[in-house]
């Protein structure tokens, strides 16, 4: 048992010798002030964000997020993969709701190819996207509840999420990184008992959300912890590039499903919940209500999935059936061409955005006409939310960091790509 200054096992290391590099306009440490770094190895920072805080007592004077602990070269890697091979990478952007990413990416490429996806696939995609949204919101609510110390609410919501994972696994074989969409449609059809399983998931979700709602929403401590913290008004939020539940919590009802409908959303009946105060509590309520709306959307789609093909019947876009590959020369040529050459996406660029659980998820793709993307850029909602964190934490306390950070639902995969 010993302690030396140079011991690498010091938990909270001293600042490096000499005057610390100061950010522009930052005053040196005041009399009652303390610099403290939260993360990246911090329970509430999801292991990937470092918050450099300057605190006076418990109040935050200044906050500066430092990210990049999960930068894993998604964009560069995709430039070296064929279009279809990008889908697994896209999965891992917002890994909480991978179906949404998959489908959004495929829709963008399909737009560039100028193909229309069969109605059955469109309906299925709508359903899966909403399932992804439910999963994401369950995780977000659960994780932020846990960070407030309400471990029970977390585990209850996880139970509901687990049901959805079982369902996704049943549908596509993977629980989290689903890879469930293809350029040109959906590769997998409904399984036997699909409707019953979705219904069971919905029931479990509604059950658990109701329980958590009963446990938390009117709980005075929970309310006080969230109400009035992390406040941001709609103007600032828009200026900072916030979208999704963050913006809606601030009172601006921007939902791309309503504003610029895609898939089946213009034919479905749903409401967009909007907050009043722009604080964490409103965002919590917005997410809670969005789970209910998504559940209703899933129900609406579930009983109206039309019959028909799932993939575009164009051998240049979707793989030909295996029987054709094994029995016909055209089949094997198409198969070979598509797998080795990739999709012949016309040269040019394209941007398409969908309403992901966290906000606007856009894909900006550039193609040079080859089989691989020239440039893949994902517009991650979390990036802008995390960049706006200092604005939301102005004058708050250390304990509000976890509440606010939980409510913006920072997902490292898409933030840092």
């Amino acid at each position, binding site marked *: 048992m010993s302690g030396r200054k140079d011991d690498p096992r010091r938990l909270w290391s001293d600042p490096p010798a000499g005057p610390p590099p100061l950010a522009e306009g930052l005053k040196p440490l005041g009399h009652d002030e303390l610099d403290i770094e939260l993360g990246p190895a911090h329970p509430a920072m999801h292991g990937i964000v470092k918050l450099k805080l300057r605190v006076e007592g418990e109040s935050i004077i200044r906050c500066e997020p430092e990210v990049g602990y999960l*930068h894993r070269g998604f964009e*560069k890697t995709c430039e070296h993969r064929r279009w279809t091979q990008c889908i697994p990478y896209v999965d891992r952007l917002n890994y909480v709701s991978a179906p949404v990413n998959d489908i959004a990416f495929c829709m963008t490429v399909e*737009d*560039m190819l100028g193909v*229309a996806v069969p109605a059955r696939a469109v309906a299925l995609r709508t359903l899966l996207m909403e399932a992804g949204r439910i999963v994401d919101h369950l995780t977000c609510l659960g994780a932020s509840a846990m960070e407030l110390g309400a471990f029970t609410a977390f585990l209850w919501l996880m139970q509901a999420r687990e049901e959805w994972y079982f369902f996704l696994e049943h549908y596509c074989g993977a629980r989290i990184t689903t890879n469930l969409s293809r350029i040109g449609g959906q590769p997998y059809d409904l399984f036997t008992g699909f409707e019953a399983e979705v219904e069971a998931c919905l029931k479990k979700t509604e059950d658990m959300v109701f329980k958590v709602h009963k446990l938390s929403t009117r709980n005075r401590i929970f309310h006080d912890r969230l109400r009035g913290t992390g406040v941001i008004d709609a103007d600032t939020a828009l*200026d900072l590039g916030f979208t999704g539940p963050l913006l809606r919590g601030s009172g601006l009802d921007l939902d791309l499903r309503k504003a610029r409908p895609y898939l089946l959303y213009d034919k479905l009946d749903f409401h967009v919940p909007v907050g009043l105060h722009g604080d964490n509590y409103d965002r919590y309520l917005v997410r809670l209500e969005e789970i209910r709306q998504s559940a209703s959307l899933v129900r609406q789609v579930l009983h109206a999935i039309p019959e028909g093909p799932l993939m575009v019947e164009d051998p240049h876009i979707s793989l030909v059936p295996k029987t054709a590959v094994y029995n016909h020369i055209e089949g094997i040529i198409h198969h070979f061409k598509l797998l080795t050459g990739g999709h012949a996406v016309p040269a040019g*660029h394209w941007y398409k955005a969908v309403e992901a659980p966290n906000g*606007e998820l856009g894909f900006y793709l550039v193609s040079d006409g080859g089989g691989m993307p020239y440039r893949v850029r994902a*517009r991650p909602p979390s990036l*802008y939310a995390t960049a706006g964190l200092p604005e939301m934490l102005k004058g708050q306390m250390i304990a509000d960091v976890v509440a606010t950070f939980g409510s913006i639902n920072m997902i490292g995969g898409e933030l840092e790509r």
Partner: protein
Amino acid sequence: MDLAGLRLILEEKHQGAVEDAAASPPDNDELLLNAAFLRPVCDTLKHHPRLSFRLMADLCCVDLLAWPGFDPATDKRFMLVYHLYSVAHNRRLRLKTLAGGDDPAVDSVAAVWRAADWPEREIHEMFGVRFNGRGDLKPLFLYEEFQGHPLCKDYPLKGQQPVVDLRAPLPLREDPAHFQTAFEKAYFRPVGLTQIDNTARLPESMLAEGALARLSQAAKAYKKRHGIDGQGLPGPVRGGGDHERP
């Protein structure tokens, strides 16, 4: 208001700002801006009551070095792409502008949309494009020791630059009894943070030593073969869109 109307409004205020326009409604209308006008045009786009693009949805950059027909000798290398969204008028707009030369730089729009702050930092570290009129362009995702700009086309995909001294991983033995001795010998010591020299691992730039001339020649050949004149920048995909949506 269609793209032409929008262009009219802009040209009325800023003569010569818009160099080109391509309409591809609803989401992919785009304008090619003269980089010198970027900042004032963005101001107008945000504050003009008939435009009011209050949300900057995204800002990214494309390295055109490997783009078909790109001539590094004459063309500007980096295309900056701004995706704007007007909540009031429910329309999208894409701005393109170019930056090139030895020290590629454009004006910062972080003062117009605060959302541009982090993307500009990201572009600076990933592509090396500088943004004028703002401070603090320190790396966002990468670390300070990192050299080069990984998203540039001349940076190799696997150009790793480790910051800790990497060790060869300990071979896993099936024999669990082996674990104790080998494990202890190899690893029961604080490993410490050693800064290693990572310059040796830096990629050799494609642009060194005659590569520039080679690329220029290839670009000329391409242009001749395809009969393209001028800058062949990426534009909206022709015939793209989900017009046939059921």
